[in-house]
């Protein structure tokens, strides 16, 4: 009964907002791209290059006309973070231009996420269980190899 209810709710609700019909994501125009200041942020001084191995993927973007600053270090990839930072900044600029309120896409996206959450949870759980076993054994093997390596290096 519970499952039926949940399922019923989901199918009805899912119809109201479609992901591919969301208002478009705000984009940086070529004009805005020229008004940016991009910085790569790293922790401090000291030696660099081959002497250390730090993942320095943090990106900071400043939109000069508005003074809006965003930072991104979501991923290990500087390339990816540069793209994500531009998306973040475009959204902030759109909000700024719209007088501070949320933009249409955000409102719709929020609603869509609320509706989709339950069904997504269910689907990913099934998938997860199936792959987990395969992944686990591969990872355990890799780990064993690393532990062996470590032991040989440390003795």
């Amino acid at each position, binding site marked *: 009964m519970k499952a039926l209810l949940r399922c019923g709710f989901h199918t009805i609700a899912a119809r109201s907002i479609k992901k591919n019909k969301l208002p478009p994501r705000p984009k940086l125009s070529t004009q805005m791209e020229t008004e940016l200041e991009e*910085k*790569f942020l*790293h*922790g401090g*001084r000291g*030696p*660099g*290059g*081959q*002497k*250390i*191995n*730090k*993942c*320095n*993927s943090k990106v900071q973007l400043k939109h000069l006309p508005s003074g809006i600053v965003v930072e991104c*270090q979501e*991923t*290990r*990839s*500087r*390339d*990816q973070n540069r793209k994500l930072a531009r998306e973040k900044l475009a959204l902030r600029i759109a909000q700024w231009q719209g007088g501070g309120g949320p933009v249409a896409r955000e409102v719709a996206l929020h609603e869509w996420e609320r509706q989709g959450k339950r069904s997504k949870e269910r689907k990913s759980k099934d998938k*997860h269980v199936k792959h*987990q076993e395969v*992944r*686990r054994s591969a*990872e*355990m093997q890799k*780990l064993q190899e*690393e532990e062996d*390596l*470590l032991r040989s*290096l*440390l003795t």
Partner: protein
Amino acid sequence: MVRIKPSVLKKACQINPLLPLLLPECRTIEAAQQELRWIQNEVSDKKRVRQCCMLRARHYPLQYLLGSQPFGPLDVTCQPGVLIPRWETEEWTVSLAEKLPRDMAFDIMDLCTGTGCIPLLLKQMCPKCSVFAVDRSPLAYKLATRNSNTLQVPLKIIKKDILERSSEIVPRTVDLITCNPPYIPRTTFARETARSVKLFEPKLALLGNKEFYANLVDCWMSRTDAFVYEVGDLSQCYYVLNRVTGDVDLSRKWRIGFRHDSCGRPRIVYGFRASGSRLNWASILVKFGDMKH
């Protein structure tokens, strides 16, 4: 290295008991949290996440645990025994790749290629080029081959010692040579090199000083129109500059520049023939760095 304060360890532990394991490498709680998120993003099994953190506490490199390092838009496979690509190298390679002409066919050779990160990115951005990659390490040779295959970026990979066997390397001449040679002098290795590097990355990829820059001037400059060499410090830049300005013939034919990384450290010595080359290097490399000669 400064000891981490017990109060910081305690605070980290309250947030997440795995964080103290990451502090020896990450130093700050924020950096440790960031790294933990990265590990959790790529490793699904909880037990395995914990084991990764334990290996990190023993300074084992993150990229050997996760098996890769992003390099520009590429995800380069990393394995113990081969140097992990650095952000400094990624930075200048991306910048160089953006300047190279996309629609022309020319020859590039990367010496000391390691994972193959530099030639892979250049070939990806300039698909018409023929790109050669040389390393004397069998492990690097294997890994570069694997990366070329999995990323589907074709390279011609050569296993040779560039100091001893340069005359055997084909092609005889190319348009551009790139190289990130081992450049940490023995005298500073123990003192200035991070523990994770010292313990787990190959010495063959790290230890070196002037020999690779001498080899550039003696063997490779006559075989190329342009070169871009990574350096560890300014004395290596000046070594190349002084060898060129000190030689009447080289001095007349070559232009030399230095480039810094975004941390402000000297990172590149580069050069190109003033005239007579297939590509117009003076205009390609116009804002790459600062001209010194």
